[in-house]
Each structure stands twice: as structure tokens, then as C-alpha cells.
């Protein structure tokens, strides 16, 4: 049986006060295990990103339980939760969100420093990672000098730099052309399979369905469909 990385158990998340209360996620139960790529599919505002942030421990549920690495998030002290995010979770954001003032290598090294590496070690590690992803030539460039596809590759490099067990990707292909998007999702798929990591992707891009081990369709904050890919689908 595969190790459970994260789990949402009957989770509801509402925002706002009594006057203007909005329910972003309603009674969602979801288990995420090592070695799979899960696609949260749904239109904008359906609650995909809220589920991602709940999984990462960035939000506390209004009701229900969020488990991360087999511990209830509610029991994590804030510093421990920060350490977990720095060491065991990688993030890929919709618009890449690389830090403009830092070079590609420094962007990656920064994530490694947050995970406790020394600066020198972090820079060495970042260099190796860029080499393994065939983007070493981008090392000293600033993010604003990169193409969209290059930016996303660097964002992925930053996410996987700390050898994260869980990769959270929010609309990773939204800003990319079809070919680049396909390459990126294949890269994430390969990472999940070869490294035995877990990748959770939130997207409304139907082209990603064929790469997902599980597709979970979200509408109005609720899971409306769960579909498991057969082994010969890809």
C-alpha cells in the first residue's frame, strides 16, 4: 500500500463573516498517495486553489480535518508547518512567481536556503539541478529575460529543489503554449513516477487529463467526479 502524503477528511472551508459568508470548499474528502499525479479539474472559482492551499497547510479548514504527512495540520505549530513547507512541499504558481531581483540560480538556491542549506551548498545544489534539467545556460539570467516556457521550467526546478515529497502546482500550464504546456506536465509526471513523489495539479486545462493518475472534477467547491486512469491510458 502506498504511503499517504496528505488527506482531506470531510473538509469544508468558508470565508467571510455571517453577513457575507461564502463556502469555497464543501465536504471534500481526498487522499493523496506517493507516486501519483492528481489533477484537480474545474472552472475558475470552483475551489481548486482552496483545496491546494488546504493540502499545503496554508489554510485551516472551517470543519473537517487536513492531514499532512500523517499528522493533523491543526496540531502543527506554525514554525513546524513552515519547516514542512520548506523541506517537504514544492510549489508551482500560476504566473511562475519567480523573484525578479534574483538570478535563476539564486531563485532556486533561496528555496534550498529556506530548507536549511548553507548558501554555498544551496548554490552548488541549484547548479546541479539546472544541469539535470538541461537549463544550466539560464543560471545567471534574471527571470525577466526568460521565455514563458523557461520561466516555468525554473519554477519547477525551484519546486523540486528541496526533494519535496509533495508538489503543489496551481494552473502550471495556464501561461504556456500547447507544446510547452505538454512538456511541463510530462516533466511533472516523470517526477512523480521516477522519484516516487506526489504531484497535485489544479487546472482547467483538459489536455492534462491524459497525464493524470487520478482526475478529480470540482464544481462549486464540491467533488463531482473522481476518475482513475487505467495503466495503458498514457
Amino acid at each position: 500500500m502506498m504511503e499517504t502524503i496528505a488527506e482531506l477528511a470531510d473538509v469544508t472551508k468558508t470565508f467571510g463573516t455571517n453577513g457575507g459568508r461564502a463556502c469555497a470548499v464543501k465536504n471534500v474528502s481526498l487522499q493523496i498517495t506517493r507516486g501519483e499525479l492528481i489533477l484537480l479539474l474545474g472552472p475558475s472559482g470552483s475551489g481548486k486553489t482552496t483545496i491546494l492551499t488546504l493540502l499545503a497547510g496554508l489554510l485551516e479548514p472551517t470543519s473537517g480535518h487536513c492531514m499532512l504527512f500523517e499528522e493533523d495540520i491543526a496540531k502543527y505549530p506554525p514554525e513546524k508547518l513552515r519547516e514542512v513547507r520548506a523541506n517537504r512541499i514544492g510549489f508551482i504558481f500560476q504566473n511562475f512567481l519567480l523573484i525578479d531581483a534574483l538570478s535563476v540560480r539564486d531563485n532556486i538556491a533561496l528555496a534550498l536556503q529556506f530548507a536549511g542549506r548553507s548558501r554555498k551548498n544551496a548554490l552548488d545544489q541549484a547548479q546541479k539541478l539546472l544541469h539535470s534539467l538541461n537549463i544550466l545556460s539560464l543560471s545567471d539570467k534574471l527571470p525577466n529575460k526568460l521565455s514563458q516556457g523557461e520561466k516555468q521550467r525554473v519554477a519547477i526546478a525551484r519546486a523540486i529543489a528541496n526533494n519535496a515529497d509533495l508538489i503543489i502546482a496551481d494552473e502550471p500550464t495556464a501561461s504556456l503554449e500547447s507544446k510547452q504546456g505538454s512538456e511541463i506536465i510530462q516533466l511533472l509526471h516523470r517526477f512523480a513516477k521516477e522519484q516516487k513523489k506526489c504531484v497535485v495539479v489544479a487546472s482547467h486545462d483538459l489536455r492534462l487529463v491524459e497525464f493524470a493518475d487520478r482526475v478529480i472534477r470540482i464544481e462549486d467547491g464540491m467533488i463531482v467526479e473522481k476518475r482513475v486512469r487505467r495503466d495503458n491510458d498514457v
Partner: protein
Amino acid sequence: MNLYSIRILVSQPLRLILTVGGVALCILLMLFLISVYHGVAEGSMLYIRHNSADLWVLQNNSWNILRGTSLLSTGHGIMLRRLPYVESASPILLGLPAISAHGRTVSTFLVGYDPNEPLGGPPHIVRGRAIENDDEIVLDEAFCARMGIEVGTTVEMNDEPLQVVGISSGTNAFVIQYSFVSLNRAQIVAGFSTIVSCYLVKIRPGYGIPKAAKLLHDDLPGVEVFDHPTFIENNYREMQSGFLPLLFTIATIGAIVLTVILSLLLSISILERRKDFAVMKTIGSPSAFLSAVVSGQALALCMAGSVLALVLFFPLCQIVMTLTPELSPIVKIEHVGVVVLAAAMISLTSSFISLQRLRNIYALEAFI
């Protein structure tokens, strides 16, 4: 100082230049004020320090010569010299007459002294010589620079011509400058030939100064007697009370302006980099790292501003002294240290104020 702080600053060169310029101006203002203050303190006090009498004898209830009136008679001098423990008693007469030269008339802090007595004369003569008779005068170098006076120039005081025979330094008290004439001349200017302001007394060897002061009090009623350190302290306090509040107010305004500039800039920088900070919070940045980013920026700006201020300070002083000779700033390495330290404290305060903005940035913003 972390790399990210520097990179953020360098990524916007124009803003960096303007901010460093603003910080440098504030530091320059503080440096300038402190150096002017010390210049005034030195200019006001050097005459008193230089004339290191064992005892200063003044009229009863007088305690300083900078902003007080003391009138004694020449008879007091005769009595003083008769006392067995008094070696010498040098009289001085102080006044505030005007001097005219080249069609301009300016007030001066006149010291009349007896050139034949050991004490009472100017602290340093930078050009020319000390006075020898009643038709001569020694003027302060800043006064001379402003009035276009040189050694050999004839000036007028109370419609009487006086030849400038020497130029003194350490005699510029900013609002007024010392000048030196004979006691006789000062008494003619005052209109009374038998008055002096005070006596600078030297005690014979073998008599302790405290003991001599007590004896003098008993032997010469109606006078105040101060030893030299006490008299310096009295005058220093008086000088400070007249000048320090003004400088302190200006320096405080400068410090507030610097704090506001830095706080505003750092706050704007934080808001502009809001997404960056949100991303860093999301990917697990320790809060100390983010605080260090902001403090690092503040300190980097402070350091750059300090360097620029120091580079500009000395040429600026030269320009100011050329345009306004009365301002004679004196700067010492410890003054620079104090100002730079104050600027560093201000920058840390600014970063502390700006950190409130950082606390209101949430990791979730990276997903919006």
C-alpha cells in the same frame, strides 16, 4: 546583510540614487549641525580655556562672561594685588561695540586687556601680532574674512581709528566674534575709566587654589570667585542653553525626515514586492529572513548615504566657510561616528516601522 536586500535596491537604480541622495542629505544636515555646534562651542570657549587663570573674580551674582554682566572697579585690582597669596590680577573689560570698515558696521565682542599683564589676551594669533598700544586692535579671522579686513587695515570704533595689527583664531562664536584692544581703549569705548568686568587671578605657589578662593572671598567682599574648571563649566552651560535648543530642534527635524523617508521607501518597496514576499512565505521562508531583507535594505541605504555624506561633507564645509566665514564647523572622528550610529539607529527604526506592512502579507496571496 542578505543578497536579496541588495538586489532589490539595485534593481531600481534611479530610485536607489534618489534615496541614497536623500539619506545623505539628512546625514549631511546632522553632521553639519554637530560640527557647527562644536565650532561654536570651541569659538565661544577657547578664549576662556586659553586664559587659564587660577581664579576668576567677578561682580557679586555674576557667574559667566558670555551672557552676563559683571562690573568691578579698578580699585578691586589694587586690593587684589596687595593680597599676599595673589601673584597677579589681570583685568579685562568686556563690551559689545560696533566696528566699521569698508562702509560696513558690525558688532563685536570686545575684550579690553592690559598687554603688560600675563592673562587676558587672544588665544591664537594667526597673522600679525598682539596689541602693544591703545591705537591697535586684534580681530577674529572670520570677522576679517567677512569684512574684507587684513593686517594693516584701519577700522573705526566709536569714531576712533584703530589699526588692525593681528588676526586671531578660536574667537568665532558664530553669532558674534571676539576682538581685542587695550584695557584703556575699552574703558574709553565704555565711557568709564575705572571699571573692568573681571580679574583673572594667578595664585602664588604654595597656596592651594581652594584655600586661596576662600581667603579671597573673606578678604574682598561683594565679589564672586570661581576656579578655572568651574568657570569654564559655567560658561559652557550658558553657551549650550542659548544655542543647543535650536540645533537640537533642527537635528530632530532632520532625524524625523530621515525616518519618514526611509520608512516610506521601505514600505513602498515591500508593497511593490508583495508577491515576492508572499511567495517566500509560502515556500517556507523563516520570518527572520524576511525581517532581515527589510532591515538589510535600510542598513544598506544608511551605509551608502553615510559614505556619500562624508564624501560631500568636507567640500561643502569649505564652500560654507567661504560664503559664511562665521560658520566654522569643526568635525572630529567621534562626531562622524555618532552621526553614522544615529543614522543606523534611525534606519533600523524605519525598518521596524515598515515591518508592520510585511506582517500583513499572507502566503495565500501567492495563489491569487
